[in-house]
């Protein structure tokens, strides 16, 4: 017999057909009119649905079939609660917000949406994996933990690193020292506390870690919002005329920025500014004797080490070429007793000089 549901649908189908015919007639047989087509479509759709409904007998579970009671859809309990629907919704909302605001938001939303969908899908799939909830949960874990833990770990690490970097960019040198001191003291204190207790409570550890993480993240966010402290530039070499030819040196003195250690093995020459104001070169390949002339190949990398043995900060400048071709390279100002590295390529000959030093020049020959 026809079931109730299918009767309804077949009825609707018949009604649609009749309506369609009437409508078609009323619109003077224009079969192509939207109304007719729509109603005819309804006729087909309802007929189809009716057929489906008839075939599965309204999805009714027969009351006579006692065995089916426990397996009926109605008897199934809901799946475990899950955050993924909310995440997916958040992702979709993020798409919308991103579409009207920033592309970055859109991209993040796509990631959130995909992550949520995958998680949701796998969760749903795993719940169908078997009849045992523990087994299903284990299935899900085995599927997704290899993905979740690295990703979450990377995110957490990224957040901590980012927060820490913002914090450090915010603090100046002295504050940084203090901050590290405080952190170190805290770590030490914590270590003492935990060392004293044989079995530290899990809750305490968790709490402290959480507080520390939140503090760090908070500080990081706050610092990021404030922007970073201004960082002075410490170029190891300069190429601008006014600096390189400046007499004496009263700026950007940073002995830490000379690279002198890393380059010692590759030197073409050591250049010494003597205490008496003379500038001499000790050239690799020659025995240790002071020279006033240095030959370097055209367009090859030349590495010099400048030793300032005078009693004031000075810089070494290499001036090559003439006129339009002139190019200047100089070290940062080097404090007395320090050294600095100068690396350049020369196309034409020139001189090595210390600005302001009369007569103290080394001839730079580029054959």
């Amino acid at each position, binding site marked *: 017999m026809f079931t109730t549901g299918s009767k309804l649908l077949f009825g609707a189908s018949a009604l649609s057909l009749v309506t369609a015919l009437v409508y078609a007639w009323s619109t003077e047989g224009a079969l192509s009119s939207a109304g007719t087509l729509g109603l005819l479509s309804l006729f087909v759709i309802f007929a189809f649905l009716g057929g489906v409904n008839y075939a599965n007998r309204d999805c009714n579970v027969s009351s006579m079939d006692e065995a089916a009671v426990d397996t009926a859809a109605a008897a199934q309990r809901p799946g475990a609660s899950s955050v993924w629907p909310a995440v997916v919704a958040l992702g979709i909302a993020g798409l919308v917000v991103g579409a009207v605001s920033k592309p970055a938001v859109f991209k993040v939303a796509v990631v959130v949406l995909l992550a949520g969908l995958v998680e949701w899908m796998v969760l749903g799939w795993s719940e169908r994996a078997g009849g045992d909830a523990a087994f299903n949960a284990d299935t899900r874990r085995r599927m997704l933990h290899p993905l979740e833990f690295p990703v979450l770990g990377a995110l957490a690490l990224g957040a901590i690193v980012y927060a820490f970097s913002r914090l450090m960019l915010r603090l100046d040198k002295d504050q940084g020292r203090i901050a590290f001191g405080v952190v170190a003291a805290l770590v030490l204190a914590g270590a003492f506390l935990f060392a004293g207790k044989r079995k530290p409570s899990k809750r305490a550890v968790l709490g402290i870690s959480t507080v520390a993480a939140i503090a760090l993240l908070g500080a990081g966010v706050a610092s990021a919002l404030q922007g970073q402290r201004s960082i002075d530039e410490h170029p190891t070499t300069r190429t601008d005329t006014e600096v390189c030819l400046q007499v004496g040196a009263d700026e950007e003195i940073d002995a830490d920025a000379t690279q002198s250690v890393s380059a010692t093995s590759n030197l073409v020459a050591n250049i010494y500014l003597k205490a008496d104001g003379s500038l001499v070169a000790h050239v690799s390949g020659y*025995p240790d004797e002071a020279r006033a002339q240095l030959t370097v190949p055209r367009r090859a990398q030349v590495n010099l080490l400048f030793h300032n043995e005078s009693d004031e900060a000075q810089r070494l400048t290499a001036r090559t070429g003439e006129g339009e071709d002139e190019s200047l390279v100089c070290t940062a100002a080097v404090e007395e007793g320090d050294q600095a590295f100068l690396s350049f390529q020369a*196309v034409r000959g020139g001189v090595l000089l210390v600005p302001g030093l009369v007569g103290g020049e080394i001839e730079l020959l580029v054959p």
Partner: protein
Amino acid sequence: MLVKPSRRAAAALAGLGLLLVGCAKDAPQDTFRPAGENARDIDGLQRPLFYVAGVVGLIVFAFIGYAMWKFRDRGQEIPEQSHGNPKLEIVLTVLPAVILAAFAVPAVSQVFALDKSDNECVINVTGQQWWWEYDYEKGSTCGGVEIPESIVTAGELVIPADTPVLLRITSRDVIHSFWIPRLNGKRDAVPGRLHTLRMHADEPGIYVGQCTEFCGLSHARMRQAAVALDTADFQAWVDNQLAPYQAPAEGTLAAEGESEYAAQCSRCHQVNGLTDDSGNPVLAEPDQSVLAGAAPNLTNLMTRTAFAGWTFDLISDECRDRLWNEPSETFGDVYLQGVWMYTPADATTPACFNELNLREWLRNPPAMKPMYTDPDKLEATDGLTRGMPNLNLTDEQIEVLVAYLLERK
């Protein structure tokens, strides 16, 4: 028995090593024919090493051979299952150790000995894909000859004979290795680093070499030679290098060649003293066209015997063979004549000039020596070539250029 050939082969091979030590004299890059102090020192250590290695090898092979013959399966009983003889083994361990120790002492001391430097005559050597540039340090004194100005040459290193010369070696691009086998071992030219190598040639003569660190496409065509001259000849050579530029006579082919040269070549190749129409010196700026930033200086091209990484001869094969076999007393005189060597005094054309090579080169350099000059493939180098591109010169252009270059002597 099957045993013998193997033993014989082994013995023959060991003997080969000995032969090689004793009688080699023919190939120009023979390492067993030292022609200078440094190479001789090395040779003095290397030869005994080969002898000892040969003897040890022979002993081992004899022992193996004997064992193979003596203990071959003649149906004897299963031998005793002995697991060794510790005393014997200790002896066999200590023995090679002693031999090696005997070599270790001179080996180490020689390393330091060869590293000592002197600064009489300093020549800067710069490797580049695929040729060597030499510049003679201004103010050096080479075998009594003063170098008043920097001299820049390429490919052929001219040094005073019987004088210690210090090479300061570096590179502009990749790693190369400078090696004149008869004068010393090799030393790598590493960009950004400066390595020194001592040279010493006993007698005037030509000593050829080859870049030995793989340096890319035309590594095989990066050669060099050292030419040793006695003091007078070296003085003459220096004077010639520093002689003022002589413009070709008006109306000659060479004069046409000069303007052609200024138009086509002077962007990369320097000819000292060449001036433009307004009398200003023409300065090559190869760094704007060539990746490594230099091109051979052609001021005295015709004083050299080969070009393009000392790969292609500027002189004919017969002249080359004669020159190479020239006794040391007369070598300098011949060499200084460049492509005019062995030419009768009244001849108007140089008898030894290998014009064909130079013409072919000018017509299409990359065809003779593979180089990265394909304009379609210069993306990585921002359009800078590594080597000389094909300038698509016409026969006429080549004609006048050859005429001009022939006067660069």
